[in-house]
Every structure is written in C-alpha cells, then in structure tokens.
C-alpha cells in the first residue's frame, strides 16, 4: 500500500513553469514606439496600470522602453491613465 504512494511524492514537487522570454529581445527591438497603441494596449491591465515585468516576462531594458512609451502615449491621450 505504501508502494504506490512513494513514487507519487516526487512527481508533485516537479511542477514546471514555462520560462518567460522577453518578447522584445526575441524581436531584437531597439525602440518601442509610443504611437503603436495596439502593442502598448497589450502591456496595460484592465485598470490601465502598466503590466509588471514579473507577469509579462519583459527584460529590464525593454520594460524601461515600454514604460517610457506608455507614459508618452498617455500624455497624448492615445491610451488611458486609468479605466473609468
């Protein structure tokens, strides 16, 4: 009876999370355009907050570019500051 339990144990601990890769690094992006609202919409949450890096998997360098682009885009009222 104890036998079937034993092999299951280690299995449970091995869950595997897909490693997130920075989308911009894959595309070799050097410049995130503030005019590209379609792209930026993908990096804001429903409340229009900026999507954190831990969720999007964007690297630090590209997150900075995304952040800058979102802020510029907000200034021009292309994307919202907040959901109303």
């Amino acid at each position, binding site marked *: 009876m104890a036998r079937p*339990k034993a092999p*299951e144990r280690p299995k*449970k601990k091995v*869950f595997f*999370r897909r490693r*997130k890769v920075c*989308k911009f690094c*894959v*595309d070799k*992006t*050097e*410049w*995130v*355009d*503030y*005019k*590209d609202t*379609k*792209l930026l*919409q*993908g*990096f*804001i*949450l*429903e409340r229009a907050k900026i*999507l954190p890096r831990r*969720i*999007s*998997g*964007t690297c630090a360098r590209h997150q900075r570019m995304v952040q800058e682009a979102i802020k*510029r885009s*907000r*200034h*021009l*009222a*292309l*994307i*919202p*500051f*907040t959901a*109303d």
Partner: protein
Amino acid sequence: MRTYELVIVADPRLTDDEMVTLTEDYKKMITAGGAEVTKEESWGRRKLAYPIAKLNEARYVLICVSTDGKSPLPEVELRLRQNDKVLRYLTVRTDRNGKPIPPPQPREERGPQGPGGPGSGPGAGRDFGAPGRGDRGESGEEN
C-alpha cells in the same frame, strides 16, 4: 544629425483648412529655424483615451524633423504652449548616436499572439495559482 518627432494634439473644432494652416505655420517655423521637415502625417480626428479640456476628440498631426546642429524646437514648443488650439504636444528625439532609430520590423507571425500572451491577466493568474492549489489538494486527500 538629430531627428525629432513632434506630435500635435489640436482642438477638434478646427476646420480642415485651419488645421492645415496651423501645421504649415509650425512647419515654417521649423524650416526658418534651420531644420528640415522630413515627414508630415495627419492622423485626422481621433477619439481621446480620456477627455482633455472637456473634449472627447482631437486632431492629431505628426511632424518629423531632422537638423544638423541648431534646433528650432524650443521656440516651436514655446509657441505650441501659447496656442490654445493646441491641447497637447510631444517632442521626442528619435536618433541615437547620430543615427536615426530604425523603425521596428513588422513581425506579423508574432503580432496577434505576442501582445495577447503576456498581456492577459488570467494567463498569469493560472501560472501562479494552479501549482499551489493543486499540490495542497492532492496531498490532503491522500494523507
């Protein structure tokens, strides 16, 4: 060489002609200041993401500028600030180490999947929530 982009967000109540004269005025200022207008793009009337000055729409114009040395933009910005037909403006330097930044290569195969993948909240929630919950549930029932 330096390149800049200037976006002007103007009052939607301006007529097409007025809008043309407004952009021409600024373009003249730029060329008079020793720079060159490389591109001009009118986006027409667009809905604003949030109201500005109680307006829900605005007219957008994009002007690309390139210059060697002297920049007329401080002067242009001053005028933009004084013009009450201009709701917002943005000037951005678009060159790095003297070279214009290449426009991003369109990645059609990744396009629809890319922004949706990281952008979707539920996907991320699943990532963090599921392993924990599953682990606890299984071990509880067996023991």
